[in-house]
């Protein structure tokens, strides 16, 4: 069974540009979560989508946004890139049974470098 897949694996952008990251969840999972992991820092929660709706949002500016499609895949968009956006962006998926307490399974991540 395929796990969570993310694309692309690596991205290099310059300040002010926009980027879109993609995530396909495990088959049967309806929730998708996005996290940012900057070098040396812990996982910072960005967004949670379930059944196409945004369920929760972390403490990030509005230039971080996303959406979930009818097939439960998801996109994370970051506008007006800043140097500090350089990080590993992780997507996770889960069933939606325990409302936030479900086991999350992670993809391999997208490494974003902003120059």
């Amino acid at each position: 069974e395929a796990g969570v897949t993310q694309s692309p694996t690596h991205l290099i952008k310059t300040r002010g540009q926009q980027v879109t990251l993609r995530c396909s969840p495990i088959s049967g999972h309806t929730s998708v979560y996005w996290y940012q992991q900057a070098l040396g820092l812990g996982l910072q929660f960005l967004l949670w989508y379930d059944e196409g709706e945004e369920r929760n949002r972390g403490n990030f500016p509005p230039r971080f946004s996303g959406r979930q499609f009818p097939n439960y895949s998801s996109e994370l968009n970051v506008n007006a890139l800043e140097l500090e956006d350089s990080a590993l962006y992780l997507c996770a998926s889960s069933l939606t049974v325990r409302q936030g307490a479900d086991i999350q399974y992670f993809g391999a991540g997208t490494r974003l470098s902003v120059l």
Partner: protein
Amino acid sequence: EDQVTQSPEALRLQEGESSSLNCSYTVSGLRGLFWYRQDPGKGPEFLFTLYSAGEEKEKERLKATLTKKESFLHITAPKPEDSATYLCAVPPNSGYSTLTFGKGTMLLVSP
């Protein structure tokens, strides 16, 4: 605000030298505690979920235990391939919020 604290931040062991990692939490009404392993540059890999005090789970050289305020990840006779960052996470006690992760313990096992 829910808090998850892991200690130590880093741990260096010799191969075969057993030890424990700690995860303490302040959330009330615990709905589960999750342990993950993360290799450098990769996504976290799910290891265990514990739901009630006194519960234990094992996988190869790892055993996770849970009390009312903390969890331990015991590593018995570790091997170099156990080197990784170990993360714990807890969900909120209610509502549409998601896991709060600790900052992790970076484990290095030397041959």
